[in-house]
Every structure is written in structure tokens, then in C-alpha cells.
């Protein structure tokens, strides 16, 4: 089959590789009809996530048709159309039973590696380094889906791939980011990063009844999308001082909920500050450039919530813990527990409450994945989201 492989930093190729085979009774093989490049794939592309190996197949947002099932999978049939959640979860451990699917205790065979870096291991993830399992991803013609009786959502309505594909990751991720803010009437929510996840966080904050939603980014075309998604205000951080602007917008209170949808490769408008974290990451003195997170903490209203859904990998520097502690802030975070959101969000799409297709800017054949990565990373041609068709 054809598959998108990570060949090194800034280097992906679409190559011919062997077809996947069932390795366990609870596996299924899915023939992929649509897959997407995630903002978090760019962290792999840029070489920020350790334990990648040359030849790893990328991609954790995918859907398609079941073509083979193991004998332990009774709820799926060959021919079923499914969306596959990016976290691999067993459905039987304590974490899964509590709905914490992205910290499944069994799905990462390389848990020992993750324990060294993070203390404990999260779940396994498709196409996202060996630290979280060494599973091939879905930017390919076929993928093996472990625990196929737990994860995949059957799509039986007449909805297009584009409408349901983002249930695999970015829609539930954005939704969980907003949900963790415990939005109540009158709340102001600010979202750092108007990429795909940030845009869905904006849309979700709207669904959850936020009074005002502020989107923060440096690209005008993305801020326009944010307005389309439901943002009441937008801030270009290269043009305004975000902390001042948020105080002004909220009459000094600060936003009740602050969502970091930017993650570890954020940039900073002040050259010196930007250079500081770039230098420290270059020599591995820290592994993140956490400008958005620092700012979200400083901006948040006393007693408010900072919700982190942007991806972080290791250690950060200059963490404003004093601001966090003295002002009674709550931090909530996590890789999205996609399984819990699949059905409710699917219903919202079917009922027309949200149309996730608005953020697709490019649809390319799988063979043009390398071009897709570059465009998405460099924000060429107003790129917001790339969907690939194997």
C-alpha cells in the first residue's frame, strides 16, 4: 500500500510499504477513505517529539471502510464505514472505565519508555512516535486498528467523510478544551491559537453558551475563520498587547476560561522573548516554547480556569506558578478522551448544530502529503486544514 512515512526532521515521503495484518483478535483493518494532517503532526515534522524512527507511518485522523476483522470483534462487520479515534483504548482498565480513554493503562506497549519521561504512561496513539506505542498511522491506504470493538464509531447516516472525519481528533479535542472551562452564562472564554483545534474550541464554547469568545492568533485569515466559528472578538498578537487587550475587553477581570490551543511551538511577538525559548529548545535546555500557556495563565481571571489542549512533550522553563497559585486558578488538561465525545458530537453534526467542514482549506491526493505538510506548516495559501484522499 501507499503510506506517508516520517523520514527525518522536515522530511516526509509517500512510499510503497507492506499492507497491515491483524496482530490480535480484537484488531480490524480499515481501508482509509479520508485522513487529515493534524497540527500536532507538525510537531513530529519539525522534530519536536522524541522517539520517532525513520519509516514511521504518520497520521492519527482517519476514517474508512472495515475490510477485515479479528475473531474477537463482534460489533463490526466487513463493509462498515467507521471513524477511528486517535487514542487507542482497551475499554476494560480502570482509566477506560472512568471515561479517561486517553490514559488507557494497556494500549501503550512502550509504557516503560513513557514512564521514564512522564512518570506514568498515557494511552497508545496512532502514528505518534514510539513513546506512545510505535503504532503506524492512518495517512495511508490501510491501517490496523487495535481494540476495534472499543474505538471506531459506525457511520450509518448519509453524511459525507468531511462532515464526520474530524470526530477522530480535533472536534472532540476542541470540545473538551471548552468543556473543561465549565462555562456558565456570562463567561468570557479566550482561545490561544486559531488553528483547527482552536477553531473547534471557539465553536464549542459557543455551543456551551459562552457570552464572549476571544480568538488570538497572528494570521488574519485564521482570525476570519474564528469569527465564522463564533468568536465575538479577535486579537492579532503581533498587533496588540494581548494581556492589555483582554483586560480592556473584560473591564479588568480577565477571561473566565483560557484555552491554550497552541501548544509547544508557539511564537512570541517580542523578538528577544521568542529568541530566548528558541535558543533554550535548540540546546535541549527545555523542550517547549510555551508562550501561549504563560500568557493564558497571566491573562486568566482570578479563580478562573486554564484549559490546555495544545500538545506539550517534556519540560518548560519560566512557568508562572506564582500567578497560578496566588490567584486560585484551576488548570485542566489532557489528550482528548475522544471515545466519550464520539456519539454526542456525531449527533450535533447530524442535527446541524455544528458543521465541521468550514475549516477545510485543501483536499489533496495522498501522494501529495509532503506538499500538504509544508503548506500547513508554513501557512501557505491560507492553509487551515489539509484532508488527504488515499
Amino acid at each position, binding site marked *: 500500500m501507499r*503510506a506517508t*512515512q516520517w523520514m527525518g526532521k522536515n522530511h516526509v515521503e509517500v512510499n510503497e*510499504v*507492506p*499492507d*497491515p*495484518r491483524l*496482530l*490480535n*483478535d*480484537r484488531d480490524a483493518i480499515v481501508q482509509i477513505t479520508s485522513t487529515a494532517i493534524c497540527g500536532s503532526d507538525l510537531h513530529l515534522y519539525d522534530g519536536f517529539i522524541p*522517539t520517532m*524512527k*525513520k*519509516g*514511521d*507511518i504518520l497520521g492519527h485522523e482517519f476514517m474508512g471502510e472495515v475490510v477485515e476483522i479479528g475473531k*474477537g470483534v463482534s460489533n463490526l462487520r466487513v463493509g462498515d464505514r467507521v471513524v477511528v479515534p486517535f487514542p487507542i483504548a*482497551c475499554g*476494560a*482498565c*480502570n482509566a477506560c*472505565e472512568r471515561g479517561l480513554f486517553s490514559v488507557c*493503562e*494497556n*494500549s*501503550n*506497549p*512502550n*509504557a*516503560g*519508555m513513557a*514512564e521514564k519521561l512522564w512518570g506514568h504512561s498515557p494511552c*497508545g496513539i496512532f*502514528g505518534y512516535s*514510539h513513546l506512545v*506505542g*510505535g*503504532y*503506524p*498511522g492512518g495517512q495511508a491506504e490501510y491501517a*490496523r486498528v*487495535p*481494540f476495534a470493538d472499543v474505538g471506531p464509531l459506525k457511520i450509518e447516516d448519509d453524511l459525507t467523510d468531511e462532515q464526520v472525519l474530524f470526530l477522530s481528533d480535533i472536534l472532540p479535542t476542541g470540545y473538551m478544551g471548552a468543556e473543561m472551562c465549565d462555562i456558565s452564562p456570562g463567561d468570557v472564554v479566550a482561545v490561544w491559537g486559531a488553528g483547527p483545534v482552536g477553531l473547534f474550541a471557539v465553536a464549542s464554547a459557543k455551543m456551551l453558551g459562552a457570552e464572549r469568545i476571544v480568538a488570538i492568533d497572528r494570521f488574519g485569515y485564521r482570525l476570519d475563520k474564528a469569527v465564522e466559528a463564533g468568536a465575538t472578538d479577535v486579537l492579532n498578537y503581533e498587533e496588540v498587547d494581548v494581556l492589555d487587550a483582554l483586560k480592556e475587553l473584560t473591564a479588568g477581570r480577565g477571561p473566565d476560561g483560557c484555552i491554550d490551543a497552541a501548544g509547544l511551538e508557539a511564537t512570541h511577538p517580542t523578538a528577544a522573548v521568542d529568541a530566548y525559548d528558541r535558543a533554550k529548545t535548540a540546546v535541549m535546555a527545555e523542550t517547549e516554547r510555551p508562550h501561549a500557556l504563560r500568557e493564558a495563565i497571566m491573562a486568566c481571571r482570578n479563580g478562573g480556569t486554564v484549559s490546555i489542549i495544545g500538545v506539550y512533550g517534556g519540560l518548560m522553563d519560566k512557568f508562572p506558578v506564582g500567578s497560578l497559585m496566588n490567584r486560585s486558578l484551576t488548570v485542566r488538561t489532557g489528550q482528548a478522551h475522544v471515545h466519550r465525545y464520539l456519539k454526542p458530537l456525531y449527533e450535533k453534526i447530524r442535527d446541524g448544530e455544528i458543521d465541521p467542514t468550514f475549516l477545510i482549506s485543501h483536499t489533496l491526493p495522498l501522494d501529495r502529503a509532503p506538499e500538504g505538510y509544508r503548506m500547513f506548516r508554513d501557512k501557505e495559501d491560507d492553509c487551515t486544514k489539509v484532508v488527504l484522499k488515499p
Partner: protein
Amino acid sequence: MSSRSASRGPRRTARVLGLASTGLGVAMLRDPKGVARFSGVDDSATALSVIPLVGARELLHAGPLLAGRPGWAWTRVAGDAIDLTAMGVALSSRGGERGRRLRTATAAVAGLAALDLLTAARSRRAGSRSAARELLPSSAPWKSAIDVSAAATVNRPPQEVYARWHDFSRLPEFMAHVREVRPAGIGRWHWVAEAPGRRTVQWDAEVVEESPGERIRWRSLPGADVENAGVVEFRPAPGEQGTEVRVRLAYAQPGGKAGKAVAKLFGEAPDQQVRDDLARFKQILETGQVVRSEGTPEGPLARRMAKQQPAAPRS
């Protein structure tokens, strides 16, 4: 999942030494003159400038020692050597009351030095010795032992988890190095384990304790290629979260070539190997299978972690 290989005795002594270092360090930094007078070197200008430095040194190793890391006693041993040398030099030029105080101080340092040396040495090999002694057959001839432990919470009731472990012939399904366990008489089992270089090591083991739902203990019988023993305990996890499983294994390490072979059997990460075995045990009970990826096709495995295959299907 957790594991542990250092034993309690040396850790406790390390903490006592850590406390001693803290006391000495603080005294030397806060009141170097008092310390100089006490030890009979208050007539020396050099002593007054050296004492705070020695104090700082004491505080440096106090931290790890207080954390119960007996290996840091080696830095104390080095410090003792320096101190005793300096005190010896000082003794040669002092008499009377000063000389008496200096002799007392030197004797005290020498006493502490002996304890330091003992603790440091025990941290090396016998860290596992005292713990392994409880487990291993008393007949086992061994210089030291590999003593490893791991724990995991399995989301199944204790009786079921116990029963799965008690099914000895199926142990190889989750114990990576064990090729076969077959019955060899009442309460006896013949074990075959893989050793490096396509060799195997074998032994007969007897079950010395079985308390359903709670504990299983076994140990090798005389004549084993590798004397070894193990115990696994099952306890209900709080909050109806299943069962807490704690396993401890000890392998006698005779001296010489045989000892090296045992060490090789476990590679550099015996702890990780037991954790991996337990991870597979948990996977089997909770999900019915060992979880495999294309990067780690065998399921959790220490040596594979260091040498991953690409995350892509293989032909």
C-alpha cells in the same frame, strides 16, 4: 506500575548519615570558630577558612543520603579520607588540651568513616542480599542476588487474578524469558527459561505457600541451574479498582562465570523486565491479549524498547 530493588537496611543507615551530614554542615557553616575550638584546631588560620568549605561539602551529600540513597555514602568515604589526613597532619603538631580534643574528634571521624564505608559497600551488592535472604532457598550458594520487584493494579477481582497466576503452565504467556513450566510431581514444577546465546536454563521449583486470593510463594529445588525464588501477593485495591499485585523475584548469583551468566540473563534492566512481565499479565487479564504494535510486536519488552522497529507493517 512500580518496582524497587534497594532494600531497607542500607536506606535507613543512609538517612542517619544524611542527618549527621546536615548537622555537621550547618554547624561548620554557621559557627566555624566553635567547631575549630571543639576539635582543637582553633589556633590555625587555615582551619577557619577550610571548615566552612567542609561544611558545604557535607550539605552536598546530605540531600541524596536523606533521600535514602546509600550509594552516596561513597562521597562521605572520600570526605572522611581527606578529613582524617588533615587531622593526622594537625595531630603531629599539637599537644596538651588541644591535642586531647583533636584526638577525640579524630576518633569520632574515624568511627563515622567506618559506618560510611560499611553503608557504601552494602549499597553495592548486599543491597539486595538481606531481602533476597528471606526468599531464596537456604541451601543456595550465592555471593549476591538479583532481587527485583514490581507492582500493578489489575482491574479484576483477587480470586480471578490469583487463579490466572496459579495456572503455572500458562506463566510463559506473560513471562518473556520463561519458555515452559510443566508439572513435575505434586506441588512441583519444571521451569525452562531462555538464556542468551540460544541456551536454556532449567530448574525444578516447589510451591512453598499458596493462600487462595492472597499469596503464592515458590522456590527452586537443589540442583537448579539458577537458584531462584519468587512471591506474588494479591490484595483488593481500594475503591473497587480490582487487585493490587505485588511480585518479587530473587535469583542467586554465584561467583565467577555462572554469576556472569545469570546477570546476562537479565541484561541491564532486570526491574524493567519484571515490570514488562506484569504489564503483559495485566493486559491478558483486562483485555484478553498481549497488546502489540508494529514497533513492539512482542508486546511490552525491555530489550525491544531500546531497539524499536519502525511503526510500519512488515512483510
